């Protein structure tokens, strides 16, 4: 597969798309872990939901 004289434009486009998608996935995964960690800390300190269910319960 030859990409011709503008290969750098094509490769940069695909690399950039891949990088941004990976950053989005990592950002959402880290945010999920952070929220669950905060909920666990709050529950460990004795704060509970009005429903009585654990806050991390899904």
């Amino acid at each position, binding site marked *: *597969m*030859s*990409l*011709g*004289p*503008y*290969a750098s*434009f*094509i490769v*940069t*486009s*695909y690399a*950039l*798309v891949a990088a*941004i*998608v990976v*950053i*989005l*996935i990592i950002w*959402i*995964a880290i*945010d*999920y872990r952070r*929220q*669950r960690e*905060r*909920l666990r800390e*709050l*529950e460990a*300190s004795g*704060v509970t*939901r009005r429903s009585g*269910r654990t*806050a*991390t*319960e*899904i």
Partner: protein
Amino acid sequence: MTLIDLANPTKFLSLTARALPWLAGATAILLLVGFYQAAMAPDDYQQGATVKIMFVHVPNAWLAMFVWGVMTLAALGTLVWRHPLADVAAKAAAPIGAAFTFLALVTGSLWGRPMWGTYWEWDARLTSVLILFLMYLGLMALWRAVDDPSRAARAAAILTLVGALNLPIIKFSVDWWNTLHQPASVMRIGGPSLDRAFLIPLLVMAIGFTLLFVTLHLAAMRNEILRRRVRSLQMMQASQQAA
């Protein structure tokens, strides 16, 4: 499970936990097939291999508008039906939509340089998409600026509805004004003008990126629900300490 059941965040989280692995798997498979087909697609007789940029540019451009459309429906859900998950959906979609719009602008620019001889031109299509990107950033700033999620939701919903006026301008800008950007070649009266060798990989990539958005959006909505639980527990903790 009905739509009303989904108004319950706990039921929504339960559905999300079951759906996300399947959605992620389907997204990965479709994108892998799409990237393979894009790599194997023939060169265009005019554009040469640079036509391959189309397979990432068009899905991102389509999603830039589609995500704002989703946010517009969510804004109506907030203002008209007061659905409890509507503003969660809107807030979670904004950064993902901003990322897709950024990618549409940059890949378009990288495609434009070899084809048009310039990275940027202040024509109607490019400028209206840049405005869309700035509106995404403005919306994200608004969500961050207001502490109370319900107050932020109403302000953001109004801004989203105003911003939706830009969507037909983007779509029809190539018909209404004389622009460097080519007119529609897939969603047009008379059917797609693209050859099947380009159309099929493009559709596979478009479906793959749309599934990617659905997957990321559900995951980001789940995070937002958990963030609001954190906030309410922190407020309960503060009131207990004050009592």
